[in-house]
C-alpha cells in the first residue's frame, strides 16, 4: 500500500518515502535506476498497480451491461473514476470527462467531431511552433479536409511564445486555438489563461494540450475557461492506454460521435441510429476499465502528495540541474530558466550526438530521452535535429542530477577526443 497520510510530505523533502511507493525504483540491477524521462512516461506507484490488480482479481467484468454483482461493481468503479478525475481538474460535471486512449486520441476526437463540422475554407486554426506532433497533425489533417488555414504562434530564442503579433494572428477568422500548456521539450509554461481570454474575445474555441501540465501542477478548467483539455494517464502516475478529454457541455452535446460502435448508442436501426448522451456518445466499444480505475488511483495519489508540493520539488530539481549543467563546457541549454518552466531541461553538448549522450548516460544508469521529442517544428526553430531531455517528477532526488552531471562529463571524455 502507498504511504497513507502524505500531505506536504514533499515539503519536508522526504523523497525517500515517496520512492518507497514505486517498486520499479527499488529494483537492483548493476546500477540503481535513475529515471529522468517522466515527460515521456511517468513511473507507476504500487497503489495504482494494486487498484488495477484488484479489478482483474476480484471484479473483472464488462461495464454498463451485466445485471450481476461484479459488473455492477465494475460499472460503479469506472463511473467513480470519471467523477474523481472530474474533481481533479475542477470540471463542473463528471459527464464532461470522456475517457480516451491518450492525449493524441482526445485531440483527434475534437479535430474530427468538432472540427469537421465547424471549419470551412477561409477559417483559421491557430497553433504554436512548440506543439507536440499530437497537437499539430490532427489540425494539419483537419486543414487538408476542410481547407481551413493553419497559422502559428512563433517562439522567441528563449523558448517562450512570441505574442507581440497576436492581434494579427488571432482574428475573427480564427475558429480554434490549439496550444500546449507546457512544452514537452522546453518545459515552458504558457500563459494559457490570457490566451484563452483573447481567443474567446474573437469568438474562437480553445483546446489545451495538458499532457505536460496536469501531472505537474493544479489545472482548473473553470479558472482557465478552456473549451477542451486533453491529457494522458501515463504521464501522471497512471497506466498507459487511458487518456482524458474534458469539454464544455454545450460543445460536447452538439458534437457528432467520433467512433461508432457499442455503448455509444440509444437505438440502432438498419440504416441509422440515435446516439447516447455525453459522455457515452464518445466512448464506443469496451473502454480501458482497469486503466480508468488505475488513473483514479493515480489522481488520489497525486492529491495525497499534493500538486503544490510536487511543483515546488520539481523547481528545486530544475534549479539544481541548471546550476550543475551550465558549468559544463560546450553545453547549450534550450528554453527558459526555472520558474518559467516545469519538469524538463533540454540540452546539447557540442560535438556529441544526442543519441551518444543518452547512450553513455545509460552506462551510468541514467535514463533520458534523446531525439526530436515529437516536436520537429520546434527543433527546426532552433536549427537542430535533436536534443537530450532530462525530465523530473516527484520521485527524483538531487543526487540523481549529480550522476547525470558525471555521466555527461564521462561522455565528453569518451567522445570528444580527436574527431575529424
Amino acid at each position: 500500500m502507498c504511504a497513507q497520510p502524505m500531505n506536504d510530505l514533499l515539503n519536508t523533502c522526504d523523497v525517500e518515502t515517496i520512492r518507497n511507493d514505486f517498486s520499479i525504483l527499488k529494483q537492483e540491477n548493476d546500477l540503481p535506476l535513475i529515471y529522468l524521462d517522466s515527460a515521456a512516461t511517468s513511473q507507476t506507484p504500487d497503489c495504482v498497480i494494486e487498484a488495477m490488480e484488484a479489478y482483474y482479481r476480484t471484479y473483472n467484468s464488462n461495464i454498463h451491461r451485466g445485471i450481476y454483482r461484479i459488473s455492477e461493481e465494475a460499472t460503479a468503479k469506472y463511473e467513480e473514476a470519471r467523477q474523481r478525475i472530474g474533481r481533479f481538474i475542477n470540471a463542473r460535471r463528471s459527464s464532461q470527462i470522456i475517457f480516451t486512449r491518450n492525449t493524441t486520441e482526445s485531440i483527434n476526437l475534437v479535430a474530427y467531431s468538432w472540427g469537421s463540422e465547424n471549419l470551412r475554407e477561409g477559417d483559421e486554426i491557430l497553433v504554436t511552433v512548440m506543439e507536440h506532433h499530437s497537437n499539430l497533425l490532427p489540425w494539419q489533417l483537419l486543414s487538408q479536409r476542410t481547407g481551413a488555414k493553419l497559422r502559428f504562434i512563433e517562439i522567441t530564442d528563449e523558448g517562450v511564445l512570441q505574442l507581440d503579433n497576436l492581434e494579427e494572428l488571432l482574428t475573427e477568422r480564427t475558429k480554434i486555438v490549439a496550444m500546449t500548456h507546457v512544452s514537452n521539450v522546453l518545459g515552458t509554461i504558457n500563459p494559457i489563461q490570457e490566451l484563452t481570454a483573447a481567443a474567446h474575445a474573437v469568438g474562437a474555441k480553445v483546446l489545451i494540450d495538458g499532457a505536460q501540465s496536469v501531472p505537474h501542477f493544479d489545472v482548473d478548467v473553470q479558472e482557465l475557461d478552456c473549451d477542451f483539455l486533453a491529457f494522458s494517464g501515463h504521464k501522471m502516475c497512471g497506466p498507459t492506454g487511458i487518456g482524458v478529454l474534458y469539454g464544455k457541455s454545450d460543445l460536447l452535446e452538439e458534437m457528432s460521435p467520433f467512433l461508432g460502435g457499442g455503448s455509444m448508442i440509444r437505438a440502432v436501426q438498419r440504416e441509422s441510429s440515435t446516439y447516447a448522451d455525453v459522455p457515452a456518445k464518445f466512448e464506443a466499444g469496451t473502454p480501458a476499465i482497469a486503466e480508468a480505475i488505475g488513473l483514479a488511483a493515480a489522481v488520489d495519489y497525486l492529491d495525497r502528495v499534493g500538486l503544490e508540493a510536487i511543483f515546488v520539488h520539481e523547481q528545486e530539481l530544475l534549479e539544481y540541474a541548471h546550476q550543475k549543467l551550465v558549468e559544463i563546457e560546450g553545453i547549450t541549454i534550450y528554453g527558459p530558466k526555472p520558474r518559467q518552466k516545469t519538469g524538463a531541461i533540454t540540452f546539447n553538448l557540442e560535438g556529441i550526438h544526442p543519441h551518444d549522450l543518452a547512450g553513455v548516460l545509460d552506462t551510468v544508469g541514467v535514463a533520458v530521452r534523446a531525439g526530436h521529442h515529437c516536436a520537429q517544428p520546434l527543433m527546426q526553430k532552433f536549427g537542430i535535429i535533436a536534443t537530450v531531455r532530462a525530465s523530473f517528477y516527484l520521485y527524483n532526488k538531487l543526487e540523481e542530477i549529480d550522476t547525470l552531471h558525471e555521466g555527461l562529463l564521462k561522455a565528453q571524455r569518451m567522445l570528444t577526443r580527436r574527431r575529424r
Partner: protein
Amino acid sequence: MNIYEEDILDHYENPSNYGTLECPDISYEEDNPLCGDQIRMDLKVEDGIITDLRFSGHGCTISQAAASMLTEEIKGRRLDDVKKLSKDDILEMLGIPLGPVRLKCGLLALKVLKAGAYGLKGWPGDDDEETE
C-alpha cells in the same frame, strides 16, 4: 557489453574511406528522420567489382562507425555481395548488441548502400516477420 567499445570509438574518430568520389558510378544519400543521422555513399564499380568507395555524412558513433566498417568490408568485393549483407552482418561487424532505436543507427549505412545499388528502400531486416 558496452556499446562504446574502443573499436567503435576508433572507427568513429578515424573513419575509413571517409569523403566523396569525383565521378562515382553510384551515389546515394539518405537520413534517418528519427535522429537526423545522414550518410552518403559513393561507389566506383568496374566489372561488377567495387573498386573504390567513400562515405560521408554525420551522426552518432554507431551510425558512423558502422559506415566505416561496412566500407572496409565491401571494398574489392562484388557489388552483388552487398545485396546479401544482412542486419546480422552489421551487428557482427560492430560486435555489440543494439536496442531497437540504435539498431537503425547501425543499419543506416547498409540501407543507403542497398538503396543506391538496387533501389531497395526498406530497413535491412525490417521485413514483416511471419507469425507462424
